[in-house]
């Protein structure tokens, strides 16, 4: 095709006309030469979990342009503003182009051999002196599937430690645990089509307008087309999402735990549940309670099968009796009448109800429980596994699903829903990896927060960080930064730019990013998207897979990675794919992904995708006549958990009277290392601000753009006040974003985490707010 931008706009308009007339137009295929010398290739967007498809224009060895891919089913040619500027993300002036080794206070250029030999020597020394559990690898939900897979095989099958974590521990871990303990398999039954087909959407702590931009535009279109569609935004802050919602329901931080229980109470009390669905599919359970908050080092908490009590429906109903709307009103701030109304919304047989949530629910010291309670609503009312009627856990990162969760780069996971604690799972993994099963340790590794605490305690001797920026993004940041500064561990950081993490490293490795390498991402809706390498990385930068395999060779584990140099990414993927076949998470052969704009797994025998899991209407693993079958759950029965209310880890008091919450905004991606180098985005939003409620601001004598000091028990920062802007927190709360590397806002955050998922609570701690 080869279009200039102007032609492209025209062509799109024409395409719409054709589409209306039922004609399909030619679509740009991978890498077609164009008249003006630009070659276009397909790739998923580098940034968020929405997973838009883009076309990348390359000329003279450089990315000169990108555009939304009209053939991309998620975005149909659209992008958000981050995606629009993708072509600039890799071309900041200060790209890392050579390995650097710390010499005292200086970072000195080095060759790859010097750097890798040094890393291997340090790892070997630590392993010889302190055992394999004294080393770790900390990766990312922005790793490609191949990178995550190689990392897992190296750490778990080679070095023999489960000290492997993704930054997805900080965002999706709570969702994962709830998927596993409810359905027996990770990731949603529904997909984005539900946003087009449903009529009721309840958002639990999700600012979709900014965090899932293109998806939100799809959801709103459904509302524009169908007057019946209702969008209910339940949140602690009024956002751009609120502005387009039909209703905003203010909730106190942590109040979701109370409100959800009360909604369930009403559903049970008024018999709004689907008796037949419950009888056929549901078993009731009660887990371990009075859980800690992980504030003490090494505080152990587990919900083993021995801790789980099976309940009858009657017992469950009795347990839910005390959770009345009147009680919940006090705890959540939602009026009792509103809770009754929400219960009737969920119970309304004429409404197709969807719940949508992200970090408000997951980054929560009882995040798994809140996920469980949302599932309870859908399982009790039978509103699940039907087109347009599903709970949908939204993902933040481009491959939190594909890599962190499906490949399983967590301290307890193996690929395709398997876990290291399970002997049969270790055997299966060892079989595919061609190693003795004893090689894979059964002991769960250090989860993210404990991993970095272990550096502080001096127990972890080496950690290699790839594709993420923990020394900006971890909670209680002062503690971990201090530990790194005092050189308690040997720290390697692979990245594409200098970051707040590279500045603390002993060795910095320059990485290739995105289309400078070949890779595969998996998005929120189980869509697996592949791309080819299109340009060379600058200088000596090399991709993370190469770095890991070269390191493996030096560690004596080179035999684990017998991939040909040409076709390496295909070979890695094909090996990984063996884990998925026949599990209900089946992936297609690599060659298929090279052609399509992603496919949603499980991919069927005939090569087509699955939109809705667990239903005979779409999922091949369910036989005709079975209707809905939760075939991954024990006895095909999903769990409805009784999850009581327990208070948050830290609540505002006289000294620290405000709630503090952090989050994302549309213009920047995570810690801003890439979007911060795009001049247009940097100008659009150049610094983190702190949002206050106008009444709180007035009381404190703070006006717009004043400097405000925020102090918690852990740290203190000064931010510019933003009052009446894009977001307004409820009274008694303040909000800020975490992208700004000059403002390490996570120094304020508490490192309390969910005892089941070990995911930190970035959404609430207590602070004082003063005019600076």
């Amino acid at each position, binding site marked *: 095709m080869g279009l200039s931008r102007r032609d492209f*706009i025209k062509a*799109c*308009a024409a*395409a*719409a006309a054709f*589409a209306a007339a039922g004609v399909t137009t030619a679509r740009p295929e991978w890498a077609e030469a164009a008249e003006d010398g630009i070659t276009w290739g397909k790739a998923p967007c580098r940034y968020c979990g929405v997973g838009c498809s883009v076309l990348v224009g390359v000329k003279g060895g450089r990315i000169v342009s990108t555009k*939304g891919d009209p053939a991309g089913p998620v*975005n*149909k*040619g*659209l992008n*958000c*503003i981050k995606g*629009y*500027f993708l072509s600039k993300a890799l071309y*900041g*002036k*200060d790209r*890392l182009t050579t390995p*650097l080794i710390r010499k005292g*206070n*200086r*970072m*000195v*250029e080095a060759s790859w051999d010097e750097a890798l030999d040094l890393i291997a020597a340090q790892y070997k020394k630590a392993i010889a002196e302190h055992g394999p559990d004294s080393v770790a690898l900390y990766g990312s939900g922005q790793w490609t599937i191949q990178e995550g897979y190689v990392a897992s095989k190296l750490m778990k099958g080679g070095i023999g430690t489960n000290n492997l974590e993704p930054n997805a521990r900080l965002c999706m871990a709570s969702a994962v645990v709830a998927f596993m303990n409810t359905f027996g398999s990770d990731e949603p039954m529904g997909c984005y089509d539900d946003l*087009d087909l449903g009529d009721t959407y309840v958002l639990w702590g999700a600012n979709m307008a900014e965090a899932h*931009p*293109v998806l939100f*535009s*799809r959801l*709103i*279109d459904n509302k*524009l087309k169908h007057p019946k569609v209702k969008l209910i935004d339940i949140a602690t802050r009024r956002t*751009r999402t609120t*502005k*387009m919602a039909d209703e905003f329901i203010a909730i106190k931080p942590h109040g979701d735990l109370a409100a959800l229980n009360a909604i369930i109470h009403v559903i049970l009390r008024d018999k709004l549940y689907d008796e037949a669905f419950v009888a056929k599919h549901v078993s009731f359970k009660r887990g371990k309670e009075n859980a800690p908050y992980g504030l003490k080092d090494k505080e152990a908490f587990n919900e083993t099968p021995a801790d789980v009590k099976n309940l009858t429906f009657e017992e469950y109903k009795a347990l839910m009796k005390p959770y009345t709307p009147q009680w919940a009103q006090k705890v959540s701030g939602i009026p009792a009448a509103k809770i009754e109304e929400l219960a009737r919304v969920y119970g309304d047989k004429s409404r197709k109800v969807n719940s949508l949530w992200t970090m408000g629910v997951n980054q929560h010291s009882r995040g798994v429980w809140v996920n469980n309670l949302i599932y309870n609503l859908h399982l009790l009312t039978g509103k699940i596994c039907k087109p347009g009627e599903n709970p949908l856990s939204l993902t933040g990162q481009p491959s939190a699903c594909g890599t962190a969760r499906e490949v399983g780069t967590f301290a307890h996971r193996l690929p395709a829903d398997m876990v290291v604690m399970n002997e049969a799972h270790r055997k299966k993994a060892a079989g595919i990896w061609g190693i003795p099963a004893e090689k894979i340790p059964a002991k769960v590794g250090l989860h993210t927060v404990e991993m970095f605490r272990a550096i502080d305690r001096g127990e972890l001797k080496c950690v290699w960080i790839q594709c993420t920026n923990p020394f900006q993004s971890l909670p209680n940041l002062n503690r971990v930064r201090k530990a790194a*500064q005092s050189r308690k561990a040997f720290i390697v950081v692979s990245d594409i*730019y*200098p*970051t*707040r993490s590279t*500045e*603390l490293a002993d060795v*910095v490795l320059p990485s290739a990013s995105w289309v400078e390498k070949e890779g595969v991402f998996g998005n929120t809706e189980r869509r697996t998207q592949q791309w080819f390498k299109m340009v060379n990385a600058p200088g000596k930068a090399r991709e993370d897979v190469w770095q890991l395999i070269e390191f493996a060779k030096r560690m004596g584990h080179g035999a684990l990675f017998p991939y040909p140099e040409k076709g390496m990414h295909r070979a890695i993927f094909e090996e990984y794919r063996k884990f998925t076949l026949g599990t209900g998470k089946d992936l297609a052969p690599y060659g298929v992904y090279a052609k399509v704009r992603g496919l949603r797994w499980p991919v069927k025998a005939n090569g087509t995708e699955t939109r809705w899991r667990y239903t005979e209407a779409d999922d091949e693993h369910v036989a005709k006549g079975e209707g809905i079958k939760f075939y991954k759950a024990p006895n095909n029965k999903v769990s409805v958990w009784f999850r009581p209310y327990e208070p948050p880890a830290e609540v505002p008091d006289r000294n620290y009277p405000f709630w503090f919450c952090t989050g994302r905004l*549309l213009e920047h991606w995570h810690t801003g*290392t890439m979007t*911060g*180098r795009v*001049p*247009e985005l*940097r*100008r*659009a939003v150049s610094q983190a601000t702190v949002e206050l409620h106008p009444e709180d601001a007035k009381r404190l004598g703070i*006006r*717009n753009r004043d400097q405000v000091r925020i102090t918690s028990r852990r740290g203190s920062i000064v931010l510019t006040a933003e009052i009446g*802007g*894009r977001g307004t927190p409820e009274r008694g709360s303040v909000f800020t974003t975490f992208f*700004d*590397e*000059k403002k390490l806002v996570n120094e304020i955050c508490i490192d309390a985490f969910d005892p089941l998922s070990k995911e930190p609570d970035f959404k609430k701690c207590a602070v004082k707010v003063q005019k600076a």
Partner: protein
Amino acid sequence: MTKERDDSGISRRRFLKEGALAPFALALAAAGGGTVYLRPGEAHGFVLRPPGAIVARRFLAACVRCGKCAQACPYHSIRLQDRGVGIGTPYIAARHTPCYLCPDLPCVKACPSGALDQKTTEVEKVRMGTAQIVDREGCLSIRGLRCEVCYRQCPLIDQAITLEPRHNPRTGEHTIMEPVVHREKCVGCGVCENACVLPKPVIVVRETVEVQRDSYDF
């Protein structure tokens, strides 16, 4: 700068020299701002004056070119014309630094001549000009992308600019979120023009047009 040390005890200058390891904010500062891509908006000869400026004809006569307003501005938004008939008169180059609408309008208070009207005390009442989308086909939001940067940066978000969502017929399943400026609320501060992500801004502050009255109420 030379003395400033980062957490690792490495002096910043050395850091930059040795390994180019400074995080981006500092790297940009060292590179001198990196604003080369900036182009001004097409305002058809309209010059943006400080808040409270009286009508253009009389303003040039009243202003004594003392530069007190410029001195009072904490953001250095106000510049002084360095050539032409209006040499020394204050103006705002929104694409470079817009007016950030200080709640107490120190620039107005500082003006001794009445060129900035002392009756201007509420920021919402300021009328420096009116923003307009001058190139609808260029605006990314109107093309269906999720941009709306101007909207989210506007100090009078949801009043001076609102988003008007409508179906996107090109994709058939997304929403065009069009930023629409409302002249009765827009103060003309230029924050939107400053923030517009396109090389030449497609939202530009221009002269506030006179409202033509008729008998229709809507």
